[in-house]
C-alpha cells in the first residue's frame, strides 16, 4: 500500500518524442541563424562581390565591431538589464588610455591598465547605483551615458586642448599593444583582423559560462524573475553588478581596439548611438528585452546579420539613398524568419 503512493507516477504517454533536430530548433539562437543564412543567400545572389571569399574578412570585421560588445550586452539583457552607456564607455576607455599615457608620458601599457580600472569602475558604478536606488537600468545608464559623453569631450579638451586625444603611436609599448588589439594577418588570401579572433574567443567563453556554469544559471534567473532568484538565495546584487562590470571589461577591450586601430588617436565624440547597435544585435539574435531568455551565440549572429546587411547593400552597389530602408527591411526579414523557425519548432 505504501509502495503504491511512493511509486513513480504512472508513465505519461502524452508526450511524443522530439527529434534531435526539433530540439536543436528550439534553441534561442537557431532562428537568428536561419535568418542569417537567408540574408547570406540573398546577398550571394544579389551582390557579386559577396561571393568573393577574400571579402569575408571585411564582413566579419564589420560584424566583430558590433559583435564584441554584443557579447556582454546580450549577457546583461538576459540578466534583465540595459546599458545605454556601453557605446560611449568604449570611447571613454580609449581616451583614458591615450590621454593618460600621453599626458604623463608613460609606457602605453600603463595607460591600458588604467583604462581597464576606469572601465570596470564605470560598470561597477552603474550596477551599484542600479541596485542602490532600484531605478530602472534605462534611467541609471542614461545618466551615465550623458555624463560619460560630456566627460569624454570636456576632459579631452582640458587635457589635449582639442577634441581628440593626442597620438600615442610613437610611444613605448605601442607596437606590442597594437599587435594584441589591432593587428591583422593573412589566412589563405583573406585578411583577418585580430579582433575577429578575439570576438570568436569571447563568444565561446561567454556561451560556455552562460550555459554550463553556476553564474550562467544565475544570470538567467535574475533576468527571468529577480524576486524568485533572490528568494532561493541567488546573490542578485552581485550578479547584476558583475554583469555591468563585464560590460565594463568589454568596453575596455573595444576601447583599446579603437585606440590602436586608429594609430593611437581617439575622437572624443565617438561611440554615441553604438549602444543601440549592440542592443539590436542582441535582440535580433533572440534575446528577450525583458530578460531571462536569450543566448550569446544569438547575439553574435545578430551582429553578423547586421554586418552582412550593412555591407551587403554596399557590395550590391544599390543606391545609397535607400540604404536605411533596405537595412530596415532586411532586419524585419531576418527576425520574421527567426520567428517562423521558432514557431515551427514549437509546433512539433
Amino acid at each position, binding site marked *: 500500500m505504501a509502495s503504491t503512493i511512493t511509486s513513480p507516477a504512472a*508513465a505519461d504517454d502524452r508526450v511524443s518524442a522530439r527529434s534531435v533536430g526539433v530540439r536543436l530548433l528550439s534553441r534561442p539562437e537557431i532562428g537568428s541563424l536561419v535568418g542569417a543564412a537567408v540574408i547570406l543567400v540573398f546577398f550571394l545572389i544579389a551582390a557579386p562581390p559577396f561571393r568573393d571569399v577574400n571579402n569575408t574578412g571585411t564582413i566579419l570585421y564589420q560584424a566583430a565591431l558590433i559583435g564584441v560588445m554584443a557579447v556582454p550586452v546580450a549577457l546583461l539583457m538576459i540578466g534583465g538589464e540595459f546599458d545605454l552607456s556601453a557605446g560611449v564607455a568604449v570611447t571613454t576607455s580609449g581616451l583614458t588610455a591615450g590621454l593618460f599615457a600621453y599626458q604623463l608620458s608613460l609606457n602605453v601599457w600603463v595607460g591600458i591598465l588604467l583604462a581597464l580600472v576606469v572601465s570596470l569602475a564605470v560598470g561597477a558604478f552603474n550596477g551599484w547605483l542600479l541596485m542602490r536606488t532600484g531605478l530602472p537600468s534605462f534611467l541609471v545608464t542614461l545618466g551615465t551615458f550623458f555624463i560619460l559623453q560630456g566627460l569624454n569631450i570636456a576632459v579631452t579638451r582640458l587635457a589635449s586642448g582639442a577634441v581628440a586625444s593626442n597620438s600615442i603611436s610613437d610611444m613605448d609599448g605601442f607596437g606590442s599593444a597594437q599587435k594584441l588589439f589591432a593587428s591583422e594577418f593573412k589566412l589563405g588570401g583573406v585578411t583577418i583582423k585580430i579582433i575577429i579572433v578575439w570576438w570568436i574567443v569571447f563568444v565561446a567563453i561567454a556561451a560556455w559560462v552562460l550555459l554550463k556554469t553556476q553564474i550562467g*544559471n544565475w544570470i538567467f*534567473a535574475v533576468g*527571468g524573475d529577480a524576486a*524568485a*532568484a533572490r528568494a532561493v538565495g541567488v*546573490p542578485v546584487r552581485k550578479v547584476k553588478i558583475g554583469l555591468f562590470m563585464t560590460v565594463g571589461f568589454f568596453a575596455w577591450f573595444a576601447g583599446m581596439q579603437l585606440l590602436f586601430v586608429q594609430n593611437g588617436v581617439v575622437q572624443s565624440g565617438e561611440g554615441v548611438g553604438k549602444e543601440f547597435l549592440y542592443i539590436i544585435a542582441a535582440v535580433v539574435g533572440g534575446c528577450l528585452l525583458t530578460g531571462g531568455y536569450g543566448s550569446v551565440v544569438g547575439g553574435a549572429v545578430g551582429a553578423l546579420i547586421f554586418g552582412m546587411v550593412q555591407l551587403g547593400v554596399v557590395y550590391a552597389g544599390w543606391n545609397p539613398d535607400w540604404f536605411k530602408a533596405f537595412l530596415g527591411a532586411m532586419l524585419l526579414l531576418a527576425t520574421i524568419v527567426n520567428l517562423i523557425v521558432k514557431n515551427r519548432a514549437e509546433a512539433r
Partner: protein
Amino acid sequence: MTTTESFASEATNSPTTPIVLLEDVGKSYGNIHALRGVSLSVRQGEITCVLGDNGAGKSTLIKIIAGLHDYTSGTMSVNGEERHFSSPRESLDSGIATVYQDLALAPLMSVWRNFFLGNELTRGPFRQLDERAMKRIAGEELTKMGISIPDLEQPVGKLSGGQRQCVAIARAIHFGAKVLILDEPTAALGVNQSGVVLKYVVKARDAGIGVIFITHNPHHAYLVGNHFVVLKLGRVALDTHRADITLEQLTTEMAGGSELEALSHELRDLAPDAVAEIEDETNTGEKEQ
C-alpha cells in the same frame, strides 16, 4: 507507530531551545500593519502549524523568517542569536528552506535548472555544471512526489499549477537543513500529491528538522501538527499544543470563531441532502446577486 507517538509528545513537552524564536515581532508595509506583536517558536523535530484567515499575515510572518522582508519591531533569534536577515541567502545559510506561496520559480528556466537554482552541482576543475547529475536527481525527486513531468527541459512556466508547486516543494525538501517552511504547499495539489507532501513533512520532522506548515485545511494541519498558531488580523489569536485542542476546536478557531454549522458540512462525509442544507442557508441569506 509507537516511535512517532512518543516523538510527537516528546516534542510537545521537550524543553529544547527553539531554532527560530520570534518575540513580539511586528511588520508594517507603509500604512498597513500586517503583523503586530507576534511570538512564535520553532523547535527541532516539531511541526508548527500557522493557521488563519486570508490576509491574516501568515505569509508575511514566514517571509520574515525566510529573510525576504525585515521585521519592523520585536526580535527574531535563530539558533539563539538575534538576527536581521538582509537577504534570503542568509536565511538559507542558517539552514532554513522555504516554499513560498507564490512559488519563487523563474518561469522561462527549465525544470531542472529551477530545481537546483542557487544550489547548482558542479564538477571538474572549471566548476562546470553537472547537468547529468542534476537532471537525474530532479527527475527522481519529482517522481517520488508522484507527479510526472514529461520533459525536464520544459520551462517551468509551461507546467500546470500543481506541477509547479511540486517542483518548489521537492526543491525545498531536498535542500532543507534545519528548518523547513511550507506556505500552503498543498493548495494546488491533487489528493495523491497532498498525501505525499504530508508524508514528507512528517519525515522531515522525524529527521529532526523544525517545520513551519501553513495551510487552510484543518485536517492537514491536525494530521501532522504538534503545535498550532492561529493568526487573526496580524495578531496571534491562539497558540496551543496538539494535546490541548481537538480538530473541531481548531476548525472553529480557523474560521475566525464564527458559528460553523454550515461550514462543518463540507468537512464531513455528507449525504446528498447536505446540498439542501446549504441551500437553506442561501435562502435565509439576504444577498440579492
